[in-house]
């Protein structure tokens, strides 16, 4: 009964969307990279860097949107590093990705310690506030859930639409998809596979960093170590779950956030009192693995994912 009460409450669905937002941004970022043929395991570290950069910018006095832009640029710089090593040089995307995650995470912590040497609890910023979209937010339940979010969340949803349109309705998107399917076909048209792939990784990494920034600038108002907590890896699972399609990936992220929000609430019910809280915390990760098992058989993987392209070699 308690679970039914939770499921019909508007605040639950508002929380679902809030939890889903960083995953949506990160998943879109990874999706763009993978569609162009590059697996970006730098995602976890890039999210950490984005979370810190955006928050730090605002803490230093810039506006909120400027903070988002700063986070994005920092993410794109790490994306550039990843792309420069994996695309023209064709280095192992696994190793470089993990290296970028380590570098981004450690340099974030290094910068944090330098910027705030003596603090024990990190300072707070004035984060994004909810903006109720007129009329739409008056719809019962749905209005509260979807249209009373912060502008950052609206941006995330807009970016999903933009990604979908870009991939399926523009010549650029066609080239990006072709780079992930058959780089030789792209090169035969005199287009630069290197340029397209690097561009996709850089832009995708910018999205990932925004996903991180959402945590410090909208979901919370402060920066903690370990706050990304595996969300990047979950996003990689969501890309697979969404069959590399933006709409399905969005759906996956919301579904995942739904389970996450549900476990938080069930923990507080009488049912949750008897079960160790760790079990609840595990469920999102276990669900990610289950999702991968479910879709793995029929997943339509980009044919050239993780395969470097060396011009003139067949």
């Amino acid at each position: 009964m308690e679970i039914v009460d939770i499921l019909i409450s508007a605040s639950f669905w508002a929380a679902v969307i809030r939890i889903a937002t960083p995953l949506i941004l990160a998943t879109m970022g990874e999706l763009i990279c993978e569609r162009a043929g590059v697996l970006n395991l730098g995602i976890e570290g890039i999210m950490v860097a984005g979370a810190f950069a955006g928050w730090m910018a605002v803490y230093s006095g810039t506006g909120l949107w400027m903070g988002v832009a700063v986070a994005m640029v920092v993410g794109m710089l790490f994306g550039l590093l990843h792309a420069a090593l994996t695309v023209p040089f064709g280095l192992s995307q696994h190793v470089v990705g993990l290296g970028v995650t380590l570098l981004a995470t450690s340099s974030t912590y290094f910068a944090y310690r330098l910027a705030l040497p003596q603090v024990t609890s990190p300072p707070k910023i004035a984060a994004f506030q909810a903006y109720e979209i007129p009329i739409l937010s008056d719809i019962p339940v749905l209005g509260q859930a979807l249209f009373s979010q912060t502008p950052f969340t609206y941006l995330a949803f807009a970016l999903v639409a933009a990604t979908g349109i870009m991939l399926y309705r523009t010549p650029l998107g066609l080239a990006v998809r072709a780079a992930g399917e058959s780089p030789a076909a792209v090169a035969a048209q005199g287009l630069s596979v290197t340029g397209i792939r690097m561009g996709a990784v850089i832009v995708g990494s910018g999205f990932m960093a925004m996903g991180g920034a959402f945590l410090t600038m909208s979901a919370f108002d402060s920066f903690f170590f370990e706050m990304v907590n595996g969300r990047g890896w979950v996003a990689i699972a969501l890309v697979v779950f969404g069959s590399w399609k933006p709409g399905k990936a969005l759906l996956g992220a919301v579904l995942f956030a739904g389970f996450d929000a549900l476990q938080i609430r069930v923990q507080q019910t009488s049912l949750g009192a008897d079960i160790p809280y760790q079990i609840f915390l595990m469920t999102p990760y276990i669900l990610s693995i289950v999702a991968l098992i479910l879709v793995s058989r029929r997943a339509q993987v980009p044919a050239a994912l993780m395969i470097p392209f060396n011009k003139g070699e067949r």
Partner: protein
Amino acid sequence: MRDTADVVLRLDAITKRFGKLIANDAISLSLRRGEVVALLGENGAGKTTLMNILFGQYTADSGTVEVFGRVLPPGNSRAALDAGVGMVHQHFTLADNMTVKENISLGAQPLFALSMKNSEITKKIKKISDDFNLKVDLEARVANLTVGERQRVEILKALYRDVKILILDEPTAVLTPQETDDLFATLRLAIANGLSIVFISHKLHEVMAISDRVSVLRHGKLVAEVDTADTDKEALATLMMGTGAVAPDIAVATPGRDLFSIKNVSTPNIGSIPGLKRVSLNLKAGQIVGLAGVSGNGQAALADLVAGLCTPAEGTIEHHGDPVKNWSARDAVNKGIARIPEDRHKTGTIADFSLTENAILECYNSDDFSKSGWMYWKKARAFAVDIIDKYDVRCPGPDTRIRLLSGGNMQKLILGRVLEAAPDIVLANQPVRGLDIGAVNYVHSQLLAARDRGAAVLLISEDLDEIMRLSDVIHVISGGRLSPEFLRGTKSPSELGGWMAGQGFDEQVTHAS
């Protein structure tokens, strides 16, 4: 003298070296409006290198490329395309998981245009396909097309970009004789529409049929330029091959008992590639069975079956008359099947393994090379040295990574690996693809030697000429179905072409019932 103002493409003294090898030695070539020039030469003669230079994939060491009187900047892939030159590569450059329309429109619009002009694109493709008789479903995924249809997409792709000069690299290698006729009809329409064509091939009768002039390349040198009307096949053959290379003589075979039989075997379809449909086939001692067909018609399934990579979903296989129960790649090796794989780079060898490690790939766990889990590297190395000597593998030594060898030498190592134990069944899947004439003759003579000492050989090839020359018995595979056996010389190329296109199978079924 014809008017030189009509020249649309001119290659002037192109030279390209790769280390010590001179791939192109001061080659000059010109193409006039409305003409077909054939570029004739064996594999390895330098044809592909020359075209890669034209398309900016390589930069020439010296020499220039001129299109419509303007010199192209070297090393710029876009320049040739922008100047109106289109190329249909031997290996198609299509994205399999995308639609025909997507493949054609890729790169045809500025990359940062805000939207695709979908209806305009469709209209233009439709018009071209009507004008040039190139029928293909625009919304179909390329993966679901036949090889012939894919080639039509490649040609459409070029024509869509309003090319004035079309370059076709071995376009008929993958076609049935009938599809080749259709292609030639399209090319004649293109000429009538003012295009000019470079036709790269090593097939003499096709060169005679379609071209106005022939330029012959041999070992990186331009050895002759002749008007087609003034020459014949024999003269061209001598020019192309020189006098040194002699194809092996083929004596008549005396077949023995069944060594390997496939009985009523079916396998599942994989994607758009058909599986086998109740196929029966006998491999007899001392006989070469040729399997002809257009690629993607079930050859891979049949090859995998013989090689032990797949088991029949229905039907049985017999080895020396005994039904086979357990069937895996290792079982196949242990039963003495020599397997020459279709792709020596992807499945035949491990590029970063040494020659020694590659030589023992199939037999490392035999008693010769290991015992209770421990390797005898000395014996393995001696085995590799032995193969290198016997099969004339040109290499620095057995510890060299095989990546650094030429295709021909790689294939010789594979031959040595599988033939050294004198196996009585040989599966040769596209054994000479991409090899130069010397290596081709070597491989063929080894297959014939295996046959003559009593082995059963299954030769799978897309090259009908090769099949007809070597095989004692020919089967055609189409859509996963196998034709009856045809003895050497009983069917003409066009009759076999009919079977390759799927004709004749239905009558056969009616016969049987």
